[in-house]
């Protein structure tokens, strides 16, 4: 298989899904400035939607599309909360949505309850083919977010993230822009969730809980809030570290917490900010 062993393919697939998932949160939190501590819930909605659909005989790609739409629909409802509350209150609200998702899934038999959903159908592309699908989606999300950042929508998101009240005073319908960010970000997370479900072929509520939400937020913060290249780099790094160093897995949260602390203390703009500063340091400008 082109010299790739099964482990490398599996690792690359995980990384690809993480990139798309992290960029989906970057769109909401990084671009538009709306903090979310429950983003894994949308990843979960996508995973459960796609898994149930393909188990029911629905074709894979349309199931992914429906997964994205389902997550986006719930994302818009949660986005409505962002019109009422901001900053730390929004963080608490979205965290509540994350807990609510896990609580509901655990109680519903048709969602597998505590046992989760197993025997999710193989999409039938083979491991390498599936990596191709994931890589294609991740590249599409990277290209889309780079384009979005350069567009007037990105320009407007930037001003809303910076100062929502002033944006409104410049004639911006901030409510619609925030809802659009939530719809797009949660939709992408939903598709990423669908890809995840068909990669691991078993899902349970715990895979989409608070820890997963914090993990993906770590990727955004460590990469550099709002930076596409930084977040992609952080998603690759944070997905691979536990795989490379198996012993880290048990201390994953400790590692992520330590990295978050170090980034906040020494480079608040994340990896992206660090690389922007490097030429200055080389010229003797210091940090």
């Amino acid at each position, binding site marked *: 298989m082109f010299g790739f062993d099964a482990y490398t393919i599996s690792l690359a697939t995980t990384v690809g899904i993480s990139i798309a998932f992290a960029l989906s949160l970057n769109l909401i939190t990084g671009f538009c400035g709306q903090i979310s501590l429950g983003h894994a819930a949308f990843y979960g909605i996508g995973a459960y939607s796609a898994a149930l659909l393909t188990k029911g005989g629905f074709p894979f790609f349309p199931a992914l599309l429906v997964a994205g739409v389902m997550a986006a629909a719930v994302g818009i409802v949660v986005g409505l909360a962002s019109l009422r509350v901001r900053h730390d209150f929004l963080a608490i609200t979205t965290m509540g949505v994350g807990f609510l998702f896990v609580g509901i899934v655990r109680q519903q038999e048709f969602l597998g309850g505590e046992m989760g959903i197993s025997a999710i159908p193989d999409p039938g592309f083979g491991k390498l083919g599936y990596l191709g699908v994931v890589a294609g989606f991740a590249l599409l999300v990277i290209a889309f977010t780079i384009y979005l950042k350069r*567009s*007037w929508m990105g*320009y407007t998101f*930037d*001003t809303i993230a*910076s100062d929502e009240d002033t944006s*409104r*005073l*410049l004639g911006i319908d901030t409510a619609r822009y925030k809802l659009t960010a939530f719809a797009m970000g949660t939709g992408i997370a939903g598709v990423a969730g669908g890809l995840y479900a068909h990669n691991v072929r078993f899902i349970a509520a715990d895979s989409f809980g608070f820890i997963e939400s914090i993990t993906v937020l770590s990727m955004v913060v460590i990469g550099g809030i709002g930076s596409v290249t930084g977040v992609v780099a952080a998603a690759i790094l944070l997905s691979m570290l536990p795989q490379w160093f198996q012993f880290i897995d048990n201390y994953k949260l400790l590692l992520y917490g330590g990295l978050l602390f170090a980034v906040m203390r020494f480079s608040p703009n994340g990896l992206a900010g660090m690389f922007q500063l490097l030429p200055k340091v080389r010229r003797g400008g210091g940090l």
Partner: protein
Amino acid sequence: MSAVLSVNGLVVRFGGVHAVDDLSFEVRRNELLGLIGPNGAGKTTLMRALTGSVLPLSGRLTFRGVEIRTLPTHQRIRLGIGLSQQIVKPFPNLTAIDNVGFSAGGSNTQPVWKSLLRLSRVREREKARLLLQRLGIDEFADAMPGELPLGVLKRLELARVLALEPELLLLDEPLAGLNHIEAARIADIISGLVADGLTIILIEHNLGEVLRICSRMIVLDNGKKIAEGDPQAVMADQAVRAAYLGT
């Protein structure tokens, strides 16, 4: 002259406090109306009520014949009201020219989905550069707001709101914090805007400049209008002297 803005029986209350109390007045097309009063008189609250940042309890606000009291802020702005805020708030991560350029590109931001299809900023930057030139700060076009002194930031704030091409410009203490030379320069710019056809409501504590450039004045005290008319006559009014100057 016809009225651009009519305020009738406007009441804004914060808890038990009447910040604006049964206020009525008109703003005529192409006039420079000075709005003065001691701190806490309700001037900034009135501006906020006009832009929709605070919701009045009752009263009517008619702008160009449209009742705007229940409209959200962005719709009032699109109708032609522009506010230059008391505390300048440029977007800190955009250069001076991009701050103004963003404002100049209002049509690119609506409807929301179309803003995704629009990439070019050339025309907006060109318009922004002309505005920066007009306000004498084009040499700072590529500077970040954090690097600029207050005098330049005040002009930048003005350039940004002018880029909206408003019909009615609300200026909330544009001269605050400036020395008398810079204050006089900005007052001249404001005067020039009226000569170019704009209608302006100016809130300002610098009475010398207000008396110099305004064609009419309204004095507020405790949310109520206590005087209105020719600036010199208003300043001679005993109630104004008592409330505003304490004499």
